[in-house]
């Protein structure tokens, strides 16, 4: 076999295998759409569950997940952005920074159920927030920290160094430089990171299991100290805990959750590409 033939075969094998990556995601989406589309209706989205959840809609769970997503954003963003600014602009390579980075890497590796138990111990019990949107948002917020911090840091570092030097040379303080030159240009990237983090948080079940999710609440939460239903947990419940549950409802719920998460990812992608277009340098 000649070298050219080897090359051809290698490329063929590699590209085929790479192509295989697309298959699972397509199958998952197709499967859920085909089975769930029939259940989707206005009533399904806007009515609470009825008859032991076997009928009616998913409105409280949908709204609960939206609340939780916002709560997670509010909990995670200040921490993550502060940490990213510190790491990118101030930290340098010190022992403290190495510990912070190690902590972030390890946060990313912790199983989500452990976050759930941590949230139960820390927020629900120790801080006595109870099973509540507050406790759930904080738990999800901590879970999303690593991805948000690392994308935000990357966004901050991608702002050309010359802009910082020029800003400082014109008599700006370091903070003014960050505030006026770095953050405005890093912001779209930071937002992308936040949204990606949120899209993961929105679909998580384990962290909300003990911290916020309610089996069944027919009404909407009235304060951040209320429990709420949430889509991932609701899906878990109707798939495993409710006998005689119509399959179409389960797939319908899964479809709504999937669309919610995909739309978040889509928004992140749009923000990122618009940022690239608007960039002047």
């Amino acid at each position, binding site marked *: 076999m000649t070298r050219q033939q080897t090359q051809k075969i290698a490329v063929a094998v590699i590209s085929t295998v790479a192509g295989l990556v697309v298959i699972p995601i397509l199958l998952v989406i197709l499967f859920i759409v085909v089975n769930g589309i029939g259940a989707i209706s206005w009533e399904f989205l806007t009515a609470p569950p009825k008859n032991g959840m076997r009928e009616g809609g998913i409105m409280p769970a949908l709204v609960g997940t939206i609340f939780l997503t916002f709560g997670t954003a509010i909990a995670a963003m200040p921490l993550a952005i502060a940490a990213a600014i510190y790491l990118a602009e101030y930290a340098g390579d010190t022992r403290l920074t190495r510990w912070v980075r190690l902590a972030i890497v390890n946060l990313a590796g912790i199983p989500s159920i452990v976050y759930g138990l941590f949230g139960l111990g820390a927020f629900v019990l120790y801080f006595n927030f109870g099973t509540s949107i507050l406790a759930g948002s904080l738990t999800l917020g901590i879970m999303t920290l690593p991805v948000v911090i690392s994308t935000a840091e990357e966004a901050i570092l991608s702002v050309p160094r010359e*802009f910082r030097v*020029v*800003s*400082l040379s*014109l*008599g*700006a303080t370091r903070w003014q430089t960050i505030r006026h030159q770095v953050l*405005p240009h890093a912001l779209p990237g930071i937002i992308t990171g936040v949204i990606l983090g949120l899209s993961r948080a929105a679909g998580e079940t384990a962290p909300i299991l003990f911290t916020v999710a309610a089996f069944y609440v027919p009404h909407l939460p009235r304060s951040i100290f209320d429990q709420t239903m949430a889509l991932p947990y609701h899906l878990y419940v109707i798939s495993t805990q409710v006998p005689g549950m119509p399959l179409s409802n389960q797939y319908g719920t899964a479809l709504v959750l999937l669309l919610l998460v995909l739309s978040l990812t889509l928004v992140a992608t749009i923000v990122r590409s618009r940022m690239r277009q608007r960039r002047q340098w």
Partner: protein
Amino acid sequence: MEPIISIRNLFFTYKDGTEALKNVSLDIYPNEVFVLFGPARSGKTTLLRLLNRLSDLIEGARIQGTIQFKGQDIFARGVDVTALRRQVSMVFAIPTPLPGSIRDNLTYGLRMAGIRRMSVLEERVERALRQAALWDEVKDRLDESAFALSGGQKQRLCLARSLALEPEVILLDNPTSGLDPLSTGMVEDSLYELKQRYTIIMVPHSVQQAGRVADRAGFLLDGELVEVNRAERLFTSPRDQRTEDYITGRFG
């Protein structure tokens, strides 16, 4: 006459141990064009950056010796570095507009210093652009992106951006590096006007340029300030053999 900048026994050592400046002592006088020339990596830019403490950005470097600006040690505790950088203002070799409009660029330093009055900002913008010989070309498009300017215009914009701060000393680090002969001529011509108001310390593009613009000049070689003299003396009858060899093109 009192020097405006006074450097004494200055050593600068990078983190890796490279000695960029060795025992440099130099006085700069008000309203002169002082040209620092020498081969690449001889420490010209390093010395320039020390004068307004942009050298602070170089991590792990060691500085010995003193630099006084108007009699004040610039490395003393409690020195307001931002004020120093407004008074001793740097124009970089590669013109780097900040993202934003031409006007934004010109007012940036002033805004950061807390000057917000529109009338003051407007006046400074126009005066700085006129001094940098850019006003006529951009007066009708001050709100357009600074990135839309040509290379020569960008360099004059960066000069104007420094001038808007009304500094006392302007540091020009090879301000004509990327420019065509016409733009280079414009920048060189503007130096004569500028030195009426400012003190100019410049790293030139070439020995020829040094000869054209300098009142006084200093020859730096491997971090050592070999010779300082009035330009007409230095470029016609240098005292040091190394200076002569460099000027006559025997090396560098």
